[in-house]
């Protein structure tokens, strides 16, 4: 028998060997819920809009963002950004500056005049929205885009609610506020100012509305009895802030004490400082550790020369000085010491919290009010069928972002209600926790800082304090995102498979656009799990084979 000297084998012959049969576990692509998205009260898909921003397609990023929140330039300034607290990158170096990028996108949209996509249908159904704060505005936006007609009424002369009459202009310039509200109105929202709704059920009836959304906020400054002399000037923080907005600022004097430890107290103190109160002091019965105000807000106040008096309660106001009682904290409880002190002051500003004026539902027998707020179900509907409520007037954290989140949920529920059904909330993906990530792959990159107005220029103007990122820094910041739990097309899985069992679906021509992702070729995948381990963002699971 003749043997050949050498053997040649055909190219591609190994394909006959289906190594996929060896597998006991299989990799599968998944989308997980990034912690930022999970934490955003407005339910923004942050990871997704950052994905667009990363490629420099800011318009696509903005459009993705406004799917959930129509006020990005505003939120990019005033939101307390719980997303950044939750951001996985916070545990790697520093959180992604989500809020700063959001503002950049919002400002760019105003500058370039981006408008919302027009609604594709008109249902002819009519919804009454009461209150034009962030919640009422966001509800109007979502309802209009769903094709419903919206009448937006407010007792105030201008729209914006607390964003206009509470939050000072040095944090939220009015041109920004007006631009984003204008854009919502341009969708065809019927804006009815100077109209106070006395009874929402009756007004819905009389107007023939198919549904109503109640977003009346918490507009009443809480007051307490403080024994005071005749000349003592006591004003509540909301009245002070409103007076500035209406260009008839309350006269305070040079020495002002602000009583309270929340964000309103910080704004009141910083406003007093700008009105000429060179000695402004925040008096609070606990300390900076317990205060509900954001640390950032306190730091800004301190930078502006405002001082603090922790562990103090106001006992009385004698006209040119306060009598302060020192207190101590015992197991978190405030305990008086009986030790008193004088604190010179020309005016006392009370910033002790806000209450909702719920006279609007007093006559409604099915609408329940508990602890000063309106009871609602998971879809934000009150006990009165077809009447929904949200924002500061319902039980929840009182922030503009929460108010916007309520509005979205309510608008979608109203839409379902008008169609004769109820809305089922989509199932949430599992969390993309840090343990799922392989952070090796991310470059070290310190966070970009927003520029700030020098302290000296903050004491006499209401000019904006915190500046925005420019395009370079915004792009840099967007690219710091780890894309937690969602494939960002890094090609790692495609590259690291020893068996060439990952197929890249993006073809060469459209590579730049991306978006088509990858697939497994289970004929050859042996289930080694390297791709799972080496996916930077944790977008692959390894699951047991059926048998």
């Amino acid at each position, binding site marked *: 028998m003749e043997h050949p000297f050498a053997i040649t084998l055909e*190219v591609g012959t190994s394909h006959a060997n289906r190594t996929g049969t060896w597998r006991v576990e299989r990799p599968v692509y998944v989308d997980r819920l990034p912690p930022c998205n999970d934490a955003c009260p407005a339910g923004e898909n942050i990871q997704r809009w950052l994905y667009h921003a990363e490629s420099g397609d800011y318009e696509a990023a903005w459009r993705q963002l406004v799917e959930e929140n129509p006020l990005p330039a505003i939120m990019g300034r005033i939101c307390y950004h719980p997303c950044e607290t939750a951001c996985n990158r916070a545990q790697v170096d520093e959180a992604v500056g989500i809020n700063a990028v959001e503002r950049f996108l919002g400002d760019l949209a105003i500058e370039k005049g981006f408008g919302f996509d027009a609604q594709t249908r008109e249902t002819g159904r009519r919804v009454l929205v009461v209150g034009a704060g962030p919640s009422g505005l966001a509800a109007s936006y979502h309802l209009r885009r769903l094709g419903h007609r919206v009448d937006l009424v407010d007792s105030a002369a201008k729209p914006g609610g607390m964003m206009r009459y509470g939050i000072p202009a040095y944090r939220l310039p009015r041109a920004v506020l007006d631009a984003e509200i204008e854009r919502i109105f341009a969708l065809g929202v019927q804006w009815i100012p100077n109209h106070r709704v006395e009874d929402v059920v009756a007004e819905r009836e009389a107007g023939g509305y198919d549904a109503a959304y109640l977003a009346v906020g918490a507009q009443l400054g809480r007051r307490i009895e403080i024994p005071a002399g005749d000349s003592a000037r006591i004003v509540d923080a909301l009245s002070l802030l409103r007076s500035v907005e209406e260009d008839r600022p309350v006269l305070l004097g040079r020495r002002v004490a602000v009583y309270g430890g929340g964000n309103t107290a910080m704004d009141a103190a910083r406003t007093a400082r700008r009105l000429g109160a060179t000695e402004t002091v925040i008096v609070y019965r606990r300390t900076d550790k317990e205060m509900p105000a954001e640390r950032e807000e306190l730091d800004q106040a301190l930078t502006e020369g405002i001082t603090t008096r922790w562990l103090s309660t106001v006992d009385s106001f004698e006209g040119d000085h306060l009598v302060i009682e020192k207190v101590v904290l015992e197991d978190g409880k405030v305990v008086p010491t009986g030790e008193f002190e004088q604190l010179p002051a020309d005016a006392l500003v009370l910033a002790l919290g806000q209450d909702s004026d719920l006279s609007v539902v007093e006559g409604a027998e099915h609408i329940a009010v508990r602890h000063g707020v309106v009871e609602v179900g998971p879809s934000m509907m009150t006990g009165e069928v077809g009447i929904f409520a949200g924002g500061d007037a319902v039980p929840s954290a009182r922030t503009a972002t929460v108010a916007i989140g309520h509005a979205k949920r309510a608008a979608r529920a109203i839409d379902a209600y008008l169609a004769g059904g109820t809305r089922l909330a989509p199932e949430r993906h599992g969390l993309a926790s840090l343990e799922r990530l392989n952070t090796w792959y991310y470059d070290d990159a310190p966070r970009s800082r927003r520029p700030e107005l020098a302290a000296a220029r903050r004491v006499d103007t209401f000019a904006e304090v915190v500046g925005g990122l420019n395009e370079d820094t915004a792009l840099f910041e967007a690219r710091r995102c780890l894309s937690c739990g969602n494939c960002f097309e890094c090609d790692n899985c495609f590259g690291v498979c020893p068996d060439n069992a990952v197929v890249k679906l993006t073809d060469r021509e459209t590579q730049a656009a991306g978006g088509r992702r990858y697939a497994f070729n289970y004929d*050859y995948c042996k289930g080694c799990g390297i791709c799972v381990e080496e996916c930077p963002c944790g977008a692959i699971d390894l699951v047991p084979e059926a048998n």
Partner: protein
Amino acid sequence: MIPVPTPVRFYQVGSFAVGNRLLDPDQRTVQADTARTNSLDSGHRACQGCGEALGARYVLDAAMRAAEDKVIAVNATGCLEVFSTPYPESSWRLAWIHSLFGNAPAVATGVAAAMRAKGRDDVRVVAQGGDGGTVDIGFGTLSGMFERNDDVLYVCYDNEAYMNTGVQRSGATPPAARTATTEAVGPAPGNAFGQGKDLPRIAMAHEISYVATATVADLHDLEAKTIRAMAHRGARYLHVLVPCPLGWGAASKDTIRLARLAKETGIFPVFEAEHGEVVSVAKIRHKAPVVEYLQAQRRYAHLFKGDHSDVIDQLQALAEANIARYGLLEPTSAEAPEVVED
């Protein structure tokens, strides 16, 4: 107030991941390209998570890119040959020839001579083998190939033992590691300290034009070195660390992680040398203690039964010696665009 514009650098995963949709195609790795050769194709019979299969495809695909697809590969006996070409199947998508266990360098020399005789200086020769084939049985022919400066790139896929025949010790097996021939018994269990061969340094001593080490954990580095090696003529040597899940007793998913740890601990120095001098080193990015590397491998399991902290200390000392010899630790600082605050 006005931030100073700075050129945007890419800070996501540009320098570490295989590719990225945001990078220019020429900044992505060869492996990111859907048109890569796939020199070693699907259907091969390597174990799950085989580092050698991965390393061979990485190197040869890059060599194919560098030589415009004109590469002949010469393969010594070993896993890479056995799992890729069980008759009548082949996983190779390039011209490939199997020699014997010990003569791949000599066969490659012959192939290179044949190409020269035919006037085909466009066809490039790559010889490859395992650590056993390279540092032990093929050592003589390799040294001859270096000395004659034959126009061959020799690539050693180092999985630190004779894996194909059941994990016997080679001259590249690290101290304390258990193999079938260095059992974890007696007063000094596992492979002995103070023996073995450091082939990259031996190659450097031949003063050939290019010597480099790399791992399967840093693809950008490995490809760059392959492409650089292909730009040289004459004898060149590339030594690639390729973890072996079977021989190392490691989880198949950990192949790349272990290669990364080998580099980040200092156990495996990653550098390149020209004409006998080190010209660059891959710095440690996040230094890891040697135990982290050892614990993930059952070939070191005996070090964690009873007190063997002295042995672990000795291994740590070897890593520190590498760090000192090659200067592997030097802080590199990330640069951020500056925002001027007024």
